[in-house]
């Protein structure tokens, strides 16, 4: 089977890339080893967050946020995106000091989307926050989307423009022969002019087949969701320095994260939860929001996510091969970037250029230059 571009991995980055390529009349084929959005893209917390981003990510994150605003209309499929603002709660003076020094840096760089909150402003936006919390920081652009639905929206939109998706096929080899990339799965051989690695937590394996080495690690961020509660928090909530993260959806259920990680068997596609760590996330949630003591946990789960040592993704061209590109290792904050990453990759494939500075994301940033 032939295409202009072969995309390995059917998460949000792969689906968004397929969409942006197909939109420009480029034939794209996405090869997914399980099913579309099976892993991190389908089971993450759905945070669409600009607040607190690493400086290197802010330009892309801002551009992506612009796209999220109208994404449902653009794609003509629902992503479940809701703009709800995000509030990071400051528990003490040290948190406030940290926020103030970041604010100085941000404003010097020309970014004004983060706003500090004093104690009374915090209580105004989050009436149920514990009275000891001293303030916080907020970004009004932020919100959440429904991860599986959003990834499927990209897939469906891409299909309308002719992109193809194959599910349940595992890449067994990838070779660059002359101008052609030849990828084999257990049933089919695919040929394309370019290959894009959007393989998430498996991105290092695909990178190796392309010829690039990268020190990716992987883990299983854990989440739990409650049965329905009366509405008590409209914004998405995080904390400056504590393991607190939750959002209450329109149906009243509360999704609690916080970054605690379980165990992964990457080859088996399985994860195991670490209940002590999840329990401490539950404890933190109740400490900050006593109203949650009345909640009941309905489900707990974890997804498989790839992490880079600096928690920044790999985005950009391959260094050891032509017509090959990477976008993986988003280190548990790639969902919001999905819309723009697809566009950046499409631009790179078609023109070799992009509007963004990708230096911080290059794949060889950990390559040993000297022995």
């Amino acid at each position: 089977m032939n295409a202009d571009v072969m995309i390995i991995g059917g998460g949000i980055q792969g689906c968004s890339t397929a969409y942006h390529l197909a939109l420009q009349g480029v034939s794209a084929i996405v090869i997914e080893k399980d099913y579309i959005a099976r892993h991190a893209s389908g089971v993450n917390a759905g945070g669409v967050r600009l607040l607190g981003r690493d400086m290197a990510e802010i330009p892309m994150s801002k551009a992506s946020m612009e796209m999220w605003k109208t994404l449902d209309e653009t794609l003509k499929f629902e992503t479940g995106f809701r703009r709800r603002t995000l509030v990071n709660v400051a528990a003490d003076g040290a948190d406030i000091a940290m926020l103030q020094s970041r604010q100085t840096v941000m404003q010097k760089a020309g970014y004004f989307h983060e706003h500090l909150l004093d104690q009374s402003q915090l209580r105004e936006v989050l009436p149920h926050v514990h009275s000891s919390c001293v303030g916080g920081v907020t970004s009004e652009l932020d919100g959440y989307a429904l991860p599986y639905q959003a990834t499927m929206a990209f897939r469906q939109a891409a299909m309308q423009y002719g992109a193809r998706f194959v599910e349940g096929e595992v890449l067994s080899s990838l070779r660059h022969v002359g101008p052609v990339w030849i990828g084999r799965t257990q049933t089919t051989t695919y040929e394309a002019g370019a290959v894009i690695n959007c393989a998430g937590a498996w991105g290092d394996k695909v990178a190796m087949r392309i010829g690039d080495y990268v020190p990716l690690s992987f883990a299983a961020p854990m989440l739990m969701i409650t049965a329905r509660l009366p509405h008590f928090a409209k914004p998405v909530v995080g904390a400056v320095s504590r393991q607190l993260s939750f959002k209450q959806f329109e149906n009243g259920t509360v999704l609690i994260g916080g970054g605690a990680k379980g165990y992964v068997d990457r080859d088996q596609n399985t994860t195991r939860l670490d209940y002590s760590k999840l329990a401490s996330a539950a404890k933190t949630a109740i400490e900050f929001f006593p109203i949650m003591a009345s909640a009941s946990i309905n489900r707990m789960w974890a997804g498989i996510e790839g992490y880079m040592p600096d928690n920044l993704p790999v985005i950009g061209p391959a260094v050891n091969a032509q017509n090959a590109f990477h976008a993986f290792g988003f280190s548990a904050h790639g969902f919001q970037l999905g819309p723009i990453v697809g566009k950046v990759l499409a631009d790179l494939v078609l023109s070799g250029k992009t509007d963004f500075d990708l230096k911080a994301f290059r794949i060889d940033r950990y390559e040993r230059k000297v022995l």
Partner: protein
Amino acid sequence: MIYDCAIVGGGPAGMNAAILLAEAGVRVVIMDRAARAGGQVYRSAADSVLPRPEALGLDYTEGVALITAFESCAATHIAAADVWHIGEDGMIFYSLNGTTRQLQAREILLCPGAIERPMPIPGWTLPGVMTAGAAQVMLKSDAVVAEKAIFAGSGPLLYLIVAQYLRLGVKVAGVIDTTPKANYLAALPGGAAALRSWPMLRKGLNLMREISNSGVPVFKAATNLSILGKTAATGLAFECNGAQEIQAETVFLHHGVIPHSNMSRSLGLEHLWNEAQQCWQVKTDSWGQSSIPHIAVAGDGAGIIGADGAQCAGRLAAFNILYRLNVFSLSERDQRAREDQSKLIGMTPFRAFIDRLYQPVEELRLPKDPETLVCRCEEQRLKDLRAGYEAGARDPNALKSLTRCGMGPCQGRQCGPIVSSLLARWRQEPEEAVGYYRLRSPQRLLSLAEFSRFQNNDETGTGAEVSG
């Protein structure tokens, strides 16, 4: 505290296994949700609230002897324990009086029992519609009955509860039997072999005779059932020699039971599709040993065999566990097992006959009306699932992610089997190729406050000090 064996579920299988293991002197703990053991079949049998429990039949009152024997055995019994996590590593977390406790065992025996097969006819989720099993729970636990109710469906449990109602003098509005005529013909060849279990067969025939002699209207081979009423059930419409309607405020539905597989699913044990019984069941060997060797499953939870079969299966699992614990030699195990093995083999023809006679019809197993709710918790209709499938969600978990079907507090108990079979029809593939939801702990709603106090390997909070 590490136990040699932990048993989850105190029905006929669990109690029998506990008695044997305790007799052999191994450290065995059994956890059960009820205050007194007995499972669904012997629920409250040992402390019945009914003035005349014998009206429920000998099968029920005979449970008292087993419960008494169980309660006098040396097994540690943790009553009112809500198990919410079982790990491959042998760790079990359970709620007891609002606190999570934990224990560990070398061998685990799951005896989760059966649940009723969902019966998604139009209106099945309306208030006033319950299952025959719910009628039994109300009767056994609280001596509560529903006057002038309709009983609709097929299978031994349906006829049993109707007969129990009649013996207690409760009026029944009608029995709508959906067993198709074709099933009688198909089961007939197995009838002769089933005669070997004549007492069982006679019990069934007596139930039928009790019902037909009572003067309660009985409609046979009924089709096209739908619940009447908009906001609550007001009766049942069906076809039986023409269109029929019966008015009633309560409709009890039943068409057989299936293994309660949430525990075995959460553990990631292998499952298979049982074509004869049209349901999923955990894959085990003849000793109940699952795809993870130190985890066994026995009783109806491992495949429907009935209470008598469950007693044998519980004992067989116990013999094998004793062998695995080096208490029994191989020959001791095999010798001790012989009696129960031959009993189980003896029951096979009757079971096959019943399975064939009451094999659920697709029309009652899967919804037909696009408006019928499949997922009660998240209110997903057949048409919503179909739309999700057409959008590309071909896997049960993908469909769950897209539509929220199966995400509610019942953990997919109700919709799971329906979703697998719907996808199998739509994909034109067998159920085994389609698979089932990936389930996780907690196995039921768990208080966030309780969980927030949880610490792994807490040395003070083990279940060892608790006994029932």
